């Protein structure tokens, strides 16, 4: 597991309010099916912005951006590269 993945998992564990253990999820598992609500996804987003010192632009503020660990990683990596 990369450092990026483990930091994302830590944010999800703290703010995602998922039904099960974050560590048991594969990177492509559907986070909404795992219990992520739209309310919790906002907190996850805010915590990711703080953790990685990034800001999600409007075009990435979509349900799909937070749909899986892989999707979050792609978005974070893109924003970190651009920074």
């Amino acid at each position, binding site marked *: 597991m990369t450092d990026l993945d483990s930091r994302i998992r830590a944010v999800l564990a703290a703010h995602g309010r998922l039904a099960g253990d974050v560590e048991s999820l594969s990177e492509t598992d559907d986070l909404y*099916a795992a219990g992520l*609500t739209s309310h919790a996804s906002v907190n996850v987003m805010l915590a990711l912005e703080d953790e990685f010192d990034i800001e999600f632009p409007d075009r990435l503020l979509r*349900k799909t951006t937070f749909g899986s660990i892989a999707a979050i990683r792609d978005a974070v990596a893109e924003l970190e590269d651009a920074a």
Partner: protein
Amino acid sequence: MSPTLIERVSHVADKVAAPAAAEVDRDARFPHEAIDALKADKLLSTLIPVELGGEGATIADVARCVEALSQACASTAMIYAMHQIQVACLVRHARSEAMRELMREVVSSQLLLASATTEIGIGGDVKSSSCAVESDGVTFTLEKNAPVISYGAYADVILATARRSPDATPGDQVLVVCRSVDTKLEANGEWNTLGFRGTCSPGFLLSSSGSLEQILEDSYGDISAQTMLPVSHILWAAVWLGIATAATSKARSYVQAAARRSPGVTPPGALRLAELTVVQQQFSALARSAARTFDEADDNVLGSIAFAIDMNTLKLSASQLVVDVVGRAMVITGISGYREDSPYSVGRHLRDAHGAQVMINNDRILANNAQLMLVYRG
């Protein structure tokens, strides 16, 4: 030339809904005659695409129809609006052959569709369910304890939210099409409210079964964000605008009657009427432009935070404007408007108007927008 959609609906509004409106309100009874008249002119299937036998109307078209009905009877208009919201969900999210057949049946049999989204025990949050679809791989069963199902006892089809399966999380919801023939409804309680009394919306214990094709493929979250929520706010706003228009019309008649009694003297109410018209213009511009915005929106717009905020804000504004306008009409019509037995009576409009802020409580919507403010980039 055949009459336009709005002319057909206005005919039902004037000839059938208006004469029954006072009795529907007084007795809190279902407006049978108006709904039957809408069915007789095939007005329950206006939103169904032409290739399935419907008229392919836009949401803006339907909003104008709802507005016209509401000037006559707000309960009838709310039932019509809620039906069209469910039809819009089918049209935009149902793809199975069984559901296409159902849409053809909405046309041929003028089926009335209702909705069961809230549930006892989840605190009014429609984005989570406790009941779950149980399936054997071919058919489903569903049991749901709903605190409110508007006109549930009169509907042919009820679209109910539920968890996808017994092991799904509360937010992992689907929309299930329950046919009344396969559904048992046990009413719990009466519907005795201040306004919208004719919508007959008590709670029900719903038990239903059917084929798995009756579960819409899209998640309820997507259906809600892209269709059910925006179309609800747009068509409810149209209902409320119709109420405001009816009250405005009474205020206008009152002022003009006073003016006829003393030509040359502008009655004091005329100034208040001019003031009311400022608010009413804002209201109609807001409600009608929202409907056009929805019709022009692509999936990108519908999925955006800006759009969600816009629709929430529409609900907040419209639900307050209707109370404002009807209150002004009451002051203009004075004791005549306050009386329950005068042609200028605004009592029913006033009671209906106050329903707007509590059907999906404004505080809930404001809290939702408050959260969106944390991420919206402007």
